[in-house]
């Protein structure tokens, strides 16, 4: 008999914890909460699991960030990803193929050197390669001085790679379901009920639910959900676009990112090239793909890899990214509203963070105390001027 990955349920009148958002982060949070014995949990998703960034991202994983806080956090996440397929008994197709961040100027390379040093100090494998070394590993790359922005060097990060994003979403969903969490698709949270400064429930299109804890895990929709409780956090939502080509024989064995050219690409096990740019420059909630993106991607990628001129573009799409001023997430209880937590600000780089984000959010909610690992990501940091500046390491190519 066919077995469902997760079950459908009637919406109950009461849960201990309501998680808004059925992306990788919401589902991971549910899974790790259940692991801590908190199983009276509902994940409420307005559309279907993976409707947001989790079903639209380009699945690059890495931990070679810039700040101590960032590096430690993303490295914990990468570590969790390493064992996740076994733990969830699901083939996540994690391919550790190594990750290049190209530098196209002396200044860019010196920024990469700083990152390499910071990474090494925290035991993250990451080092600088010169153009000749790059060429050995990426034989098709143009390292001559023909391109407008010649390659000067790269930060190479062997543990980085790609994963099958849908599989991560489904595996966490199944894992959470098996531990007793209820997953509700087509269930939109329309309002959050706050009583005497405490979150006590949510109003959905399927009825009202009471609970002790509400966690907003909605990435690109974070401002909208926070608006329901009059909390204003510095999220700005921008579209991010991506494309996939037809399948080709394996020729690209590593993830390649160029900040200067605003592009990145990798090749999946199926042979397609998965490609992306930086965010669309205007804030927007539309998930429409544009010809402008295709044109700019094509022009830039051909500078780096002229061999790609005949590669055919199969499909393009867009998703939403909740950018924060310092390109780091917000994972935090909200002091003004007891029992209300926000997990967001995942921008263009959050998929790789899902395990650590879910794990620490669950700890925070279960123990009523913020784990040290995510303490730097409290929302008060903006008022207190303790930014975790990751823009240099987090933008383009996630």
């Amino acid at each position, binding site marked *: 008999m066919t077995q469902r990955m997760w079950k459908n349920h009637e919406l109950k009148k009461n849960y201990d914890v309501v998680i808004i958002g059925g992306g990788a982060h919401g589902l991971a949070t549910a899974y790790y909460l259940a692991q801590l014995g908190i199983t009276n949990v509902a994940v409420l998703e307005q559309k279907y699991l993976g409707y947001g960034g989790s079903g639209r991202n380009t699945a690059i994983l890495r931990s070679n960030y810039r700040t101590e806080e960032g590096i430690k956090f993303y490295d914990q996440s990468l570590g969790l990803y390493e064992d996740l397929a076994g733990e969830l008994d699901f083939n996540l197709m994690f391919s550790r193929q190594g990750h290049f961040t190209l530098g196209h100027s002396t200044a860019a390379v010196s920024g990469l050197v700083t990152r390499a040093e910071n990474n090494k100090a925290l035991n993250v494998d990451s080092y600088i390669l010169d153009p000749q070394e790059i060429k050995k590993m990426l034989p098709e790359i143009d390292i001559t001085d023909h391109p407008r922005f010649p390659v000067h060097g790269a930060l190479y990060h062997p543990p980085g790679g790609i994963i099958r994003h849908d599989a991560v979403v489904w595996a966490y969903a199944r894992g959470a379901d098996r531990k007793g969490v209820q997953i509700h698709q087509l269930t939109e949270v329309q309002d959050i009920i706050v009583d005497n400064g405490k979150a006590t429930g949510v109003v959905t299109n399927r009825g009202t639910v009471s609970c002790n804890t509400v966690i907003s895990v909605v990435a690109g929709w974070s401002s909208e959900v926070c608006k329901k409780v009059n909390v204003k956090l510095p999220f700005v939502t921008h579209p991010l676009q991506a494309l996939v080509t037809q399948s080709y024989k394996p020729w690209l064995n590593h993830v390649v990112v160029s900040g200067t050219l605003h592009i990145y690409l990798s090749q999946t096990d199926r042979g397609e090239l998965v490609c992306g740019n930086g965010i669309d420059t205007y804030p927007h909630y539309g998930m429409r793909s544009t010809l402008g993106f295709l*044109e700019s*991607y094509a022009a830039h990628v051909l500078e780096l890899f002229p061999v790609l001129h005949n590669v055919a573009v199969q499909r393009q799409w867009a998703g939403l990214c909740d950018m924060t001023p310092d390109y780091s997430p917000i994972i935090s209880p909200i002091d003004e509203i007891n029992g209300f937590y926000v997990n967001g600000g995942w921008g263009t780089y959050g998929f790789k963070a899902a395990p650590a984000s879910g794990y620490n959010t669950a700890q925070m909610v279960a123990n009523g105390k913020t784990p040290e690992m995510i303490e730097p990501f409290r929302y008060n940091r903006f008022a207190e001027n303790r930014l975790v500046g990751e823009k240099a390491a987090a933008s383009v190519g996630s």
Partner: protein
Amino acid sequence: MEIIVPIKQVPDVALNIKVKDGAVVEEGLSYVISSWDETALEAALQITEDVGGEVTLLTIGPEKAAESLRKGLAMGAHKAIHVKYNEAKQTDSFAYAKILQKVLEGREYDLILTGKQAQDTDAGLTASMLAEFLGLPQVTNIIRFSDVSEQSITLYRKGDHATEVLEMELPGVVTVNDSLNEPRLASMRGIMMAKKKPLEEIELDAIGVSVEMSGAQGSMTEVLQYDKPESRKEGKSFEGDETETVKQAMELLVSEAKFLA
């Protein structure tokens, strides 16, 4: 061989199209080349690759229709003509065919190749009317072509029991069935080069199209409103043990659906 491929930009029907208060909800629509026109473009590209010549795309539409032209150029068309036009909603096949006639009069071409109908209206009239207006022969709904020369082309149409084989003198108008080919995808270089290809913009008055000839005035028919199609009744699903669920389904087929009475 000079081929004109008239294309229409239509809402992407793969997305959910909503109807409200008798009109199509514009918000959230995304626009693409009508799929039969893409098939026509592919055929035109194959012909010019084979016998030489150029493919010219032609569309009548608002500012955003230029995107579809650029996509067609990215697929390989050589140049494009954009007739600027903002009255698409009130315009029927007759008025479109009249405008196309005005654009094409005085131009040199051997073949006009387009989709057998547009994906949004499914009317399938414009190309035939255009052929009439231009006084050209026409063959519609082809599934194959062969023996292309400057003078003639052989065309195949599928009937229920036989395939019709026709030879048409050129210039002429041909519309295509989507079984003709699988349109190519744009390549990286194609996408990049498209920006540099000639895209001619034409205003209606420059080609002598008067107000009376366009929009509602130039049309013979008028769309009064759009109604939602009746939604299908929700299906029933059964969960649990197979012998039990099959039994339940059988009972309902007999008692409710009267299917196995």
